[in-house]
C-alpha cells in the first residue's frame, strides 16, 4: 500500500493489522492445543486454551476501538476504508474461531475411557485441515493475497466432507457401543465445532479477498 501524507494514519493501519495478526496467532495455537488436549486428555492444556480466549476477546475490543477511532478521525477512503471494515469484521470472526477452540477444550473432561475410544483418532486429521485453513487465511491476510484466499474457500468443501464422514462414523459407533453414547455425542459437538472453524476461515477468506480487490469472491457452491 502506498504511503499516506499523514504518517499517523499509516501507523494506525499498521497497528490494526498487527492486532489482527496477533489475534489470529492466538486462535491458531488455541485450535491446535484444544485438539491436542482432546486427544491426549490433557486437562491442563485445555485450561490454558480456555484462559487464552479471554486474551483474544480483549484484543477484539482493542481492534473495535481502534477501527472506530480511525474511521472517526481519519475518514478513510477506498482501499483504506475496505481495510478498516475488513479488519473490523475479521476480528469478530477470529473471536468466534477462538470461542470454538474454547468449546472444544471445555469438552476434554467429558470423554470417558479415552484409551479404547476409537473415534477419537478421526478428529486430528479433520482438525489439521481446519487449522491449515486458518493458517493459510491469516497468511493471505498478511500478504493481501486474494489467490490464497480463494484456495482457502475451496478447501472448506474438504472439511465439510470430513464432517459428514465423521458424523456417519460416530453414529454407527453409537449404535454398536451404546455405553459410549455420551462420549460420542461430545465428539459430535467437537466435530461440529471444527466444521464451524472451517466455515469461519472461509468467511475471513472472503473478507481478505474483498479488502484486497474490492470484490467478494465468486460463489463456488452453485
Amino acid at each position, binding site marked *: 500500500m502506498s504511503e499516506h501524507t499523514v504518517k499517523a494514519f499509516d501507523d494506525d493501519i*499498521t*497497528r490494526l*493489522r*498487527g*492486532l489482527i*495478526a*496477533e489475534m*489470529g*496467532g*492466538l486462535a*491458531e*495455537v488455541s485450535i*491446535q492445543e484444544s485438539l491436542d488436549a482432546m486427544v491426549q486428555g490433557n486437562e491442563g492444556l485445555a485450561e490454558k486454551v480456555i484462559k*487464552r480466549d479471554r486474551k483474544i476477546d480483549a484484543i477484539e475490543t482493542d481492534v473495535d476501538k481502534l477501527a472506530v477511532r480511525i474511521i472517526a478521525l481519519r475518514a478513510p477512503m477506498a482501499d483504506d476504508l475496505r481495510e478498516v471494515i475488513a479488519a473490523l469484521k475479521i476480528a469478530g470472526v477470529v473471536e468466534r474461531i477462538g470461542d470454538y477452540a474454547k468449546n472444544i477444550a471445555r469438552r476434554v473432561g467429558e470423554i470417558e475411557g479415552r484409551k479404547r475410544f476409537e473415534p477419537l483418532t478421526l478428529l486430528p*486429521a*479433520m482438525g*489439521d*485441515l481446519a*487449522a*491449515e485453513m486458518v*493458517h493459510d487465511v*491469516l497468511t493471505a491476510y*498478511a*500478504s*493481501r493475497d486474494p*489467490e490464497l484466499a480463494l484456495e482457502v474457500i475451496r478447501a472448506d468443501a*474438504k472439511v465439510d*466432507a*470430513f464432517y*459428514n*464422514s465423521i458424523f*456417519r*462414523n460416530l453414529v454407527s459407533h453409537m449404535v454398536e457401543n451404546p455405553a459410549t453414547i455420551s462420549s460420542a455425542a461430545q465428539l459430535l459437538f467437537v466435530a461440529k465445532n471444527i466444521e464451524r472453524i472451517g466455515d469461519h476461515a472461509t468467511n475471513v477468506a472472503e473478507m481478505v479477498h474483498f479488502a484486497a480487490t474490492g470484490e467478494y469472491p465468486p460463489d463456488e457452491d452453485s
Partner: protein
Amino acid sequence: MEQRPTLSRPGLALALVSAIGMVLAGVGFHIALIILAIWLGTLWLSAPRPPQPDRSGGDGAFTRASVGDLIEHSATPMLLTQGSRVTTANLSARRLLGSHLVDQDARVAFRHPEAIALLARDAAGSAIIRGLERRRDIWSMNRQPIGDGFAVIELVNRTSEADISRAHTDFVANASHELRTPLASIIGYVETLLDTPGSLDEETSDKFLGTIAREARRLQHLVEDLMSLSRVEAEKHDQPEEEIGFASLVERAARDAAGSERAHRLEMHCNSPVLIAGDSQQLEQLVRNLVDNALKYGDDDKMVSVAVDMSDKGEATLTVEDRGEGIAAEHLPHLTRRFYRTDPGRSRASGGTGLGLAIVKHIVERHRGRLDIDSVQGEGTTVTVRIPCKAPSQAAVRDIAKLS
C-alpha cells in the same frame, strides 16, 4: 575519530588572565603557577566529551542502509525492526515470509503468541515458534535490541531436528506390521511344505509356492518403497536446485509408467515449456506413482489424461485425471497417509504397498508444492500437483525463445 576532550577557549583565557593578574597583584609567582595548574586541571577534567555519532538522526539513515546491505545475502533469515515495524528484511527473510512484510507491523509476520511476547519485551531473548511458513515447521527466533528502538531478529529453522525423532517412531509403528504380514504367510507356507514332504499333491504345493513367490515380491516392493520414502524424507529440508523442463520430464515418466501395453490409454497435454527447480529422479517417481495409480484404478477401457500447465500464479501444475469409480469423499483426507487403503483387498491384489501417495506427498512437500486430490464417485479422480516455478535463467529464456 578525535576522542580527546578539548578545553574550552574562554576557560583557558580566563585562567591565564587570572594568573597574570595574580602575579601583577603581587602574589608569589610559584603560587600563581600552582593555582593556574589546578585551574587547568579541573577545566580538563570537566571538558565535555565529543558527542557520540547519533544512530537515528543525521547519517543514521546511512547506518541502517549499511546494516541492510550487511545482512542482505545472509543465508539466515534476518530482520531489522524499529519499534513494532519491520524496516529491513534480508533476502532469505523475504523469501521465507514474503516481501510484503517490510514496513508492516512485525506481528503480521510473526503471529505466534510466543513471538509476540518476545517482540513486546524490549530485551534480548529467543522464542520457539511453530508454523511460520508452513503450519508444522518449527523455528527459533532470536531478538537482539541494538538501541534507539531498533532490534535485529534472526530466524533459525529447527524443523528437521524435530522431524527426525518423529519419523523414527512413525516408521516403527507403521512398517513393522506391514512387513510382518507377508513374512508370516511366507514362513507359514514354507513350514507346511517342509513338514509334510511328499504328502502334498503337486497342485497344492505349486499353489503354495506361487503364494510364497507373490508374498516375497510384495515384500520386495514394500522394502523398495520404504527405502525411497525414507530417502525423500531425509532430503526433505534441502531445497532441490536442479533446473528441470517439467513438461518433458512428465511425458517421459508417464510413458515409462504406462509401459508398452498401457501406453495407448494415455492422453498427454504437455506442450507448455515450464521450468522448475527440482530433483528429477524424485519428480519422475512422483509422476510414475500418479500415472500408475490412475491407470490401475481407472476403468480399463478409459483414457487417463496427463496435463502440464502454468498457472496464473506462476506455478507449474500437473494434472492426472482418470475415469473410473472414483474415491468416496470420506477417504480423501486420508489418502496420503502411509499404508492407508480404501479397499485393502483390491489394493493387495493389485500389488499396491500403500505407500505410493505418501511418497508423492513427501516429494511435493520437498518442492514446496501443493497436492490436491478431487474425486467424484462414479466419474473419476483428478490429482493436481502444483510446484512453484523457477525464475527462468537467461539461458533458459533464450532456449524457450528459440523453441517458440
